[in-house]
């Protein structure tokens, strides 16, 4: 496929497969064979088991490879594209780095902006309106609900995904992991830590 940057998609696209899946789901729902809630419950049970979950590997690489980290923060999509084994992540993936001074968290107004290739499916609460509105107004309170306590002087920055831009949080590398391999480090990276509603696991903390 050629890269034609003059061409902008101003409407949505569904792949041929997605069209067929949606067609079936609609028909089965209309005919009463399938209840959307029951279907969601099954899918939700597998929310962490969908997608290649490249996020943890990308984060672990950024922790161990300063040149990659620099490239990742400059242009997330491009840097991730240089990792041959990682599948596409779409354009305009912006990686925001957590530091002692600043904690990032991501809210999303639509699930289509959620980088599921990186993170698997979003948790249910992520799509819920109360989470989205509260996260903007009272991020510290939302984080407290998730047992994320930050020092008072840490600034909290909330990023609202749009159709154009999706965000991935680069969490801080846990202490006590000096000399760890990328593979070992990737085990510590949780989905929530890449949304900013959690921290990576500490060494020895159970999965």
């Amino acid at each position, binding site marked *: 496929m050629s890269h034609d940057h003059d061409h902008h998609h101003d*409407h*949505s696209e569904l792949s041929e497969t997605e069209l067929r899946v949606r067609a*079936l789901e609609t028909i089965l729902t209309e005919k009463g064979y*399938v209840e959307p809630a029951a279907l969601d419950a*099954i*899918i939700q049970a597998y929310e962490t088991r*969908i997608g290649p979950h490249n996020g943890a590997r990308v984060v672990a690489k950024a922790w161990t490879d300063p040149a990659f980290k620099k490239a990742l923060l400059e242009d997330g999509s491009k840097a991730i594209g240089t990792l041959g084994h990682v599948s596409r992540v779409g354009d305009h993936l912006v990686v925001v780095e957590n530091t002692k001074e600043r904690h990032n968290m991501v809210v999303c107004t639509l699930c*289509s902006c959620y980088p599921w290739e990186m993170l698997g499916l979003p948790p249910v609460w992520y799509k819920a309106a109360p989470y989205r509105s509260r996260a903007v107004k009272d991020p510290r309170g939302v984080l407290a609900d998730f047992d994320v306590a930050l020092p008072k002087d840490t600034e909290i920055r909330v990023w609202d995904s*749009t*159709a154009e831009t999706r965000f991935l949080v680069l969490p801080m590398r846990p202490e006590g992991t000096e000399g760890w391999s990328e593979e070992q480090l990737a085990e510590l990276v949780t989905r929530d830590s890449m949304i900013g509603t959690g921290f990576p696991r500490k060494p020895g903390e159970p999965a």
Partner: protein
Amino acid sequence: MSTTLAAAATAAIPSIPRDDDGPVFRAPWEAHAFAMALTLHERGVFTWPEWAAALADEIKRAQAAGDPDTGETYYLHWLATLEGLVARKGVASMATLHRYRDAWDHAADRTPHGKPIELRPEDFAG
């Protein structure tokens, strides 16, 4: 409850891609296709042996047509099996399936990028 259903499915269909903890999916639509089969089975539309036979036929047909059979296409075969059984059991004809597929295509076309895509009656107008 849903994982119990899934455990029965994976036991009955050994080819389902999985790791030590159960089935794994490469994309959200695969999980949707999986969940639909589970639900239709629950409703008694087909039995697992019936499903397994239909899926095996589908894979055999695809391989004869040059499918690389690397595992990446597994859920495409799963989806085709689902469509085939839905048609054969009289739930919805292939024509209906195509009509809804085209309607969704129309809905995607008129939906601005980034907005949720919803099906409306006018999408069926063609």
